[in-house]
């Protein structure tokens, strides 16, 4: 850490980790309700639990992105943040908005579009928070060194804010509503969020592998080109059955299939850079999370996305547990692991603890990843059985659900393992390792 203002990232990382635990805790409660439907039914219904689960995820990932940006932008631009005071104020406003939303949800105060359940005033507060953030980092970038990483990160962050504005548009015509709902949801997670992901990963690879910036930055542009060239029209895979024209079946199938390419490129590129770079960076855990992120994103977003993206297949699988399986692995791989990667890298530097033993953090990696992977397998099997029974044989929904009990129990077990893993990760990040690494042999100063 070279710049004092980078420390504001700690606020965001701490807030993100607290919400991460809440998100996974609510996930395991939901998993329990699925197998024991009367659990909590009179107290908090499923829909409220679910909106807390999904909203907490979105908010903590965004909070992590903000923290990552505040951490890496001073280093990239080689200048202090425009205003640390504004960054701290932005954090508290964002945290307050998130807390108010959750409390409101528990009392039944919410709107009702999936993932966009926040009441209008909270949506507007989010816009204000985003503007504070964008002003702060844009001013910082303008006065400092401009790199491909800051350009791409800035573009991604501006995109997040711009496309969020579509959440304010809610027409009475359900077809229009659904079309533009995807302008937030798809253009976020399969568009601008991937820019944020690629730029943070590029930053980590430069730091961890020591590969020349020119090489990494060129490939950053190549990979995000593939991302957006395929991902923008890939929105079409959500326009198959919602009242939109049938040509989307061709466009969506072709372009969303190609969406796998940038994820594959990220895996190949990350591993190649590590192999080629040859730097023995002491923060092994950060490298593990970075490579894990590329790999799990490829499987979760790429392979599990492709599994049901072709229109003739999606016709049968749309809206089954196959979608749930893909959603869990994709978010974990692409965005959860990315956040934990940058935190694992930044925490020791921010807290002046490096280099230290991160064995516990790596245990967290393996336990959580195993949990999420097993959960994905259980949901995938559930989805395949459901697709056959409900969409091919035409059995009714609840009868089919009764057939899926075993898979839901397995999913709950995997969820509990995930929860344990997450607690380990958070503990390992926040509490300094007991056994400090003593060997300084071959250690080059980490950037």
């Amino acid at each position, binding site marked *: 850490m070279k710049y004092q203002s980078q420390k504001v990232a700690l606020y965001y990382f701490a807030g993100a980790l607290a919400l991460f635990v809440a998100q996974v805790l609510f996930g395991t409660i939901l998993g329990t309700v699925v197998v024991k439907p009367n659990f909590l039914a009179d107290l908090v219904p499923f829909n409220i639990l679910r909106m807390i689960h999904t909203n907490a995820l979105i908010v903590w990932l965004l909070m992590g992105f903000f923290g990552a940006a505040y951490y890496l932008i001073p280093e990239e631009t080689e200048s202090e943040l425009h205003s640390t005071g504004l960054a701290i104020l932005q954090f508290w406003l964002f945290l307050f908005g998130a807390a108010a939303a959750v409390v409101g949800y528990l009392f039944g105060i919410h709107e009702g579009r999936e993932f966009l359940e926040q009441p209008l005033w909270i949506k507007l507060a989010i816009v204000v928070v985003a503007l504070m953030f964008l002003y702060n980092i844009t001013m910082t970038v303008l006065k400092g060194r401009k790199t491909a990483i800051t350009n791409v990160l800035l573009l991604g962050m501006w995109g997040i804010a711009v496309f969020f504005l579509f959440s304010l548009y809610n027409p009475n015509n359900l*077809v229009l509503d659904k079309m533009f709902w995807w302008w937030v949801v798809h253009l976020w997670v399969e568009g601008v969020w991937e820019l944020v992901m690629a730029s943070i990963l590029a930053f980590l690879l430069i730091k961890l592998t020591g590969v020349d910036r020119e090489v990494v930055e*060129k490939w950053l542009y190549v990979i995000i080109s593939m991302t957006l060239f395929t991902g923008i029209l890939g929105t079409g895979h959500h326009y198959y*059955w919602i009242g939109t024209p049938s040509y989307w079946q061709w466009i969506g199938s072709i372009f969303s299939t190609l969406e796998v390419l940038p994820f594959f490129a990220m895996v190949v590129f990350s591993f190649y850079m590590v192999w080629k770079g040859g730097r023995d960076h002491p923060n092994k855990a950060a490298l593990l999370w970075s490579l894990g992120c590329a790999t799990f994103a490829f499987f979760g977003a790429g392979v599990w996305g492709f599994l049901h993206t072709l229109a003739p297949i999606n016709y049968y699988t749309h809206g089954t547990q196959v979608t749930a399986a893909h959603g869990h692995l994709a978010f974990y791989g692409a965005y959860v692991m990315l956040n934990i990667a940058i935190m694992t890298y930044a925490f020791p530097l921010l807290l002046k603890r490096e280099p230290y033993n991160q064995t516990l953090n790596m245990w967290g990696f393996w336990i959580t990843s195993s949990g999420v992977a097993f959960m994905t397998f259980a949901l995938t099997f559930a989805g395949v059985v459901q697709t056959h029974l409900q*969409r091919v*044989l035409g059995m*009714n929904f609840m009868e089919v659900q009764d057939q899926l009990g075993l898979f839901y129990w397995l999913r709950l077990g995997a969820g509990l393992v995930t929860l344990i893993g997450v607690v380990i990760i958070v503990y390992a990040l926040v509490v300094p390792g007991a056994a400090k690494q003593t060997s300084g042999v071959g250690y080059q100063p980490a950037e």
Partner: protein
Amino acid sequence: MSETLTKAAARNIFYGGTAFFFVVFVALTAHSVTKANAIAAANPVTPSVAAGKHIWERHACVDCHSLIGEGAYYAPELGNVWVRFGGKEDAAGAREALKAWMKGQPSGIEGRRQMPQFNLSESELDNLVDFLKWTSEIDTQNWPPKVSG
């Protein structure tokens, strides 16, 4: 490739290509909007349908059910529930059955998934049924494959 493609070239390809694909996407979206408007012209979104949509949202129905495959997958698909309840053959009967179903929740049966009681008025229930009926008439390219949803 490392010699032929420079960073500046890669950057220009990125910005140019992204702008191109975004323009294509906007154009196709604009065309699709005309189709969405045509759907509403042929089958108007009446004040009751619009009210029903807001009731659907106010109670976050989508966080248990799915509507044309989107939502949570905890409770049945409702995009075609009107058809499933026989609305095409007997509209009055389907309406009464849907309303009775919603009034009868929660079942309280041990081991069954529980739908909360939302205490909707008679007219709100009618709005909601109108919205579900309207939704079932959207041209979904014959999705879902079975009436089971």
